[in-house]
């Protein structure tokens, strides 16, 4: 089943042409990593999917339904998003960060929401931080809470926008482990990342973007060991030679 379909997506920031016709289809359970140099439009593509960015041309379908401003709140509640800067709500405890949206958007009862929150915090290994404010957590812990917060809505698709780019190197692994665990559980995911080894390990498909276009797309073995495109080879050369 197709969870997400992007068709002919074009996006300008003013005069800057950032997405030059993107086509992408994501099947249920698929894990897709999007790699590419900075400014290639990876994050913008992700943000267009849940309409955090407007786009000028193209269509995006979620489970066959065209995403518009009318249905966006409902669709967003089925698409989890994890940000580079975590974006936890600093005035709320970890628990309240998790239960706010389910209670307000899905009218979930508080008891039920708290039960669910505890389970998810257990899963990301942070149950002992349940009453802390985000400011008292490390970056890695904050990002794991952010992942749990997104999972509270039972999303059918998760978008990760450079989830480890703002982290100290020694905190990257704990976050990647949580994402890996999620991938193995069958979650459909789109991951914008600079962690090439991780992308290689976890993805069913890797998308390489450059200058607003998808240059190459394929299974990780193919992209990382034998890329067809010159630009892909050049980009990955930096990583493969390390």
């Amino acid at each position: 089943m197709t969870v997400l379909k992007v068709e002919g997506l074009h996006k300008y920031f003013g005069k800057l042409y950032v997405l030059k016709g993107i086509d992408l289809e994501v099947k249920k359970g698929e894990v897709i990593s999007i790699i590419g140099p900075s400014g290639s439009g990876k994050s913008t593509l992700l943000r267009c999917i849940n309409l955090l960015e407007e786009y000028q041309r193209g269509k995006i379908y979620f489970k066959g339904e065209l995403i518009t401003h009318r249905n966006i709140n409902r669709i967003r509640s089925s698409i989890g998003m994890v940000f580079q800067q975590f974006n936890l709500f600093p005035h709320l405890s970890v628990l309240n960060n998790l239960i706010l949206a389910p209670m307000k958007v899905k009218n979930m009862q508080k008891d039920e929401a708290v039960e669910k929150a505890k389970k998810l915090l257990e899963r990301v290994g942070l149950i002992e931080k349940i009453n802390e404010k985000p400011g008292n957590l490390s970056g890695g812990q904050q990002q794991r809470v952010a992942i749990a917060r997104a999972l509270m809505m039972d999303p059918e698709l998760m978008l990760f926008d450079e989830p480890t780019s703002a982290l100290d190197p020694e905190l990257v692994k704990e976050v990647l482990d949580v994402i890996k665990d999620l991938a193995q559980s069958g979650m459909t995911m789109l991951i914008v990342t600079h962690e090439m080894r991780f992308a290689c390990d976890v993805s069913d498909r890797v998308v390489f973007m450059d200058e607003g276009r998808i240059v190459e797309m394929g299974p990780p073995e193919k992209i990382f060991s034998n890329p067809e495109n010159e630009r892909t080879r050049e980009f990955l050369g930096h990583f493969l030679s390390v």
Partner: protein
Amino acid sequence: MPEWLSVIVDNLPLLLKGALSTLQLTSLAVLIGLAIGIFVGMGRLSKYRIIRYPSSVYVEFLRGTPLMVQLFLVYFGLPELGLEFDRFTAAVIALGINSGAYVAEIVRAGIQSVPKGQYEAARSLGMSHAQAMIYVILPQAFRHILPALGNEFIALAKDSSLAMVIGTVELMRSAQYIVSRTFMSFPIYGGVALIYFAITFSVSRLVKFVEGRLKV
């Protein structure tokens, strides 16, 4: 008892009554100012011109005209249009809508001080614009602007003395009345200054206290 002290003591009930009226006047104006300020402040950030423009006009006009003129307009001007208020109500309205303009600017700055990612995170979870504002943006904005709001409330408490020009009986008006009978300007106005200070200092302590309680 020296004469200056006995004048104060004799007139204390009248002064305290005036102080109470000043407190009521200020508190009601603060409430109106806050209510207007939150909506107009958000209005100035609206993506819809039909909301944004009137909000800007409101702020610019009320900041750009003297409070005394506004008091006269409400108390003497509006009756000609069929809207009549007693002196106290007129003062509350004039002070409230005036303060609303200043609070609106504070609220606008407060909302803008919350990182954009907070709004995006809230919306990405499926919250509506209103839910994101109520549960995520405004609580954080409120923490940031508390000191500025404190300043505004202190200014309002002091500005309320201007209500005497339309004859509202408040602290300053009571003092004037006492002085006109006793001709003891220094002790009375000195005492009045101390009472205003007691009020504003309490506000500033209260704001500090709330700030401490809400620390993120």
